[in-house]
């Protein structure tokens, strides 16, 4: 294993800038790691390594010619396969889009190309990002590099497993109810859901448009900050894109501090009922936060009790509408039944063959929630709960700069443990969902290993909308304190990946 792949993205960027290493060397080292562990971890659905090496060579040529280059030029990255790309298939983890090549790049992809970051490939996800484990990917699950018999989180388990198995230093994810933060927590990596609208969704295959947000996946907070600064910004092609800049996340991460901060401990998410090892690490982290000069204040968010329920009505309702576009006409699969069927029967046969169980379940649930007779009781009520959750956040942020909770109730679970029980699967997102309902930013930062299973535990910080910088500040500060105590990085605890 090349030492290069264990470097953080910001370290690689610095080495590249000083000419200590070439981008081709860095990119090739990651391609070698993909060859070595890729089959065992199954993070990628499509590789674009040839294109990545071409970009790397171009970066090296420009650097040799003395041209000035963007901060992350030459640093390789992987992207979730629900972002459209013109040079590789985009499947969103679904059979219905198998082999589809998009006619345009997502805005985030365009930004990565402008930054001259070699894109190594497209990462696995639960079908259309519906799931917490990648077990609902039509192309098979990704594995958790800490223990290959366990899930890497979802829906962005491809991106979290890529970064935690050193196949790429950075990845892009999308977070609708925790799909960046939950995978981050269970793989010992950093995941951020920026403020709604901070990153353009143009070219992101929509799951639930009022909840979806693209964000960075990385092995430390500073790397994530560099990536957010690359992908954020106003985009006229996304009508929900924020016009105002949120400032420099890199600066916030470099000035990481907890001193004088008011940190709100959410009463409803303080860890009661969570796995014991999660509670233990969380309690220790709170102590470190206090020792670093922050003040912990308890905040009460009573409506959070209804967050999962509201979410599992709003999301399916929006998804049932968004996924109507998969109609066998403009792109993707077409299944034509025997005889002389009408287009409606062709659509129904195609969607039956092309969609997996969780997607069908949620489309049918969403269709019900929106239908006359049940609208008020379900979808309409969920929209009202959304107001209550926003009010809870408003009240909490009147008392605290940031809020804190464990990212997830458990560490990574085993394959098959929850796949047959939708409600059990939905509970993984209990701490992450409220942020999506309110549009506020959240970060998951690793805080050590659970006592009972030696698997990673994450802490979540939440900040008011537009205050993403506060997350990078407190996240980087806590990470620095922990690395000081450990004398090493979180990923240095990971067992050696056993591959054949």
């Amino acid at each position, binding site marked *: 294993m090349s030492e290069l792949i264990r470097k953080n993205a910001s370290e690689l960027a610095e080495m590249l800038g000083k000419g200590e290493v070439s981008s081709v060397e860095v990119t090739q080292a990651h391609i070698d790691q993909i060859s070595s562990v890729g089959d065992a971890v199954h993070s990628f659905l499509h590789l674009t390594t040839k294109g990545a090496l071409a970009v790397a060579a171009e970066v090296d040529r420009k650097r040799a010619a003395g041209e000035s280059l963007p901060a992350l030029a030459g640093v390789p990255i992987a992207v979730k396969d629900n972002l459209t790309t013109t040079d590789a298939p985009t499947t969103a983890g679904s059979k219905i889009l198998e082999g589809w*090549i*998009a*006619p*345009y790049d997502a805005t985030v992809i365009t930004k990565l190309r402008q930054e001259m970051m070699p894109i190594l490939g497209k990462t696995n996800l639960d079908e259309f990002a519906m799931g917490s484990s990648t077990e609902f990917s039509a192309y098979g699950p990704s594995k958790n590099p800490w223990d290959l018999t366990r899930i890497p989180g979802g829906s962005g388990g491809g991106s979290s497993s890529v970064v935690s198995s050193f196949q790429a230093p950075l990845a892009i994810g999308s977070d609708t109810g925790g799909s960046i933060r939950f995978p981050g927590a269970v793989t010992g990596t950093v995941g951020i859901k920026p403020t*709604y609208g901070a990153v353009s969704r143009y070219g992101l295959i929509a799951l639930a448009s*009022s*909840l979806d947000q693209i964000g960075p996946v990385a092995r430390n907070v500073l790397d994530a900050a560099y990536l957010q600064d690359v992908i954020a910004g106003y985009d*006229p092609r996304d*009508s*929900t894109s*924020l016009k105002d800049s949120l400032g420099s996340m890199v600066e916030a991460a470099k000035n990481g501090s907890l001193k004088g901060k008011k940190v709100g401990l959410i009463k409803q998410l303080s860890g009661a009922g969570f796995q014991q090892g999660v509670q233990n690490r969380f309690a220790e982290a709170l102590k470190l936060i206090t020792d670093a000069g922050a003040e912990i204040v308890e905040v009460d968010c009573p*409506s959070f009790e*209804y967050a999962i*329920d*509201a979410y*599992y*009505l709003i999301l399916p309702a929006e998804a*049932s509408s968004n996924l*109507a576009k998969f*109609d*066998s*006409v*403009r*792109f*993707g699969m*077409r299944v*034509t039944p025997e005889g002389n*069927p*009408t*287009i*409606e029967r*062709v659509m*129904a046969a195609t969607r039956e063959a092309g969609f997996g169980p969780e997607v*069908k*379940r949620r*489309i*049918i*649930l969403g*269709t*019900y929630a929106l*239908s006359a007779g049940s609208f008020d*009781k*379900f979808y*309409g*009520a*969920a*929209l*009202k*709960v*959304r*107001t*209550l959750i*926003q009010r809870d956040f408003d009240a909490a942020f009147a008392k605290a700069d940031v809020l804190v909770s464990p990212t997830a109730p458990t560490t990574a679970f085993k394959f098959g443990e929850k796949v047959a029980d*939708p*409600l059990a699967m939905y509970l993984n997102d209990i701490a992450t969902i409220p942020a*999506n*309902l309110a*549009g*506020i930013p959240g970060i998951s930062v690793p805080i050590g290993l659970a006592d009972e299973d030696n698997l990673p535990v994450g802490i979540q910080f939440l900040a008011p*909308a537009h205050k993403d910088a506060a997350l990078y500040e407190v996240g980087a500060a806590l990470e620095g304190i922990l690395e000081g105590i450990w004398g090493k990085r979180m990923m240095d605890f990971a067992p050696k990946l056993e591959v054949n």
Partner: protein
Amino acid sequence: MSDVTPDLVRHLANLARIELDESEVVRFTEQLGVILDSVAKISSAIDENTPSTSHPIPLTNVFREDVIEPSLSQEQALSGAPDQGQGRFRVAAILDEE
């Protein structure tokens, strides 16, 4: 208890244009019932005076400048179609023969 029946699931699947097989109808009837029983408690959290929030950031009438920009060519737009001809998406009959 929920009032989800196999007929309701068939009706919803038909509205959503998904031709479920019978084993899926049975499974979804049970699972949908469990999910709806669980989420129905949200009605106890609200009353008629609670305002609705459909979107995290209030937005109205978002427009961009009306300027001509390059867009997808017809060829690009058709490039992913399962079937096409004469510059159009080709589909099965819209209306039944009856």
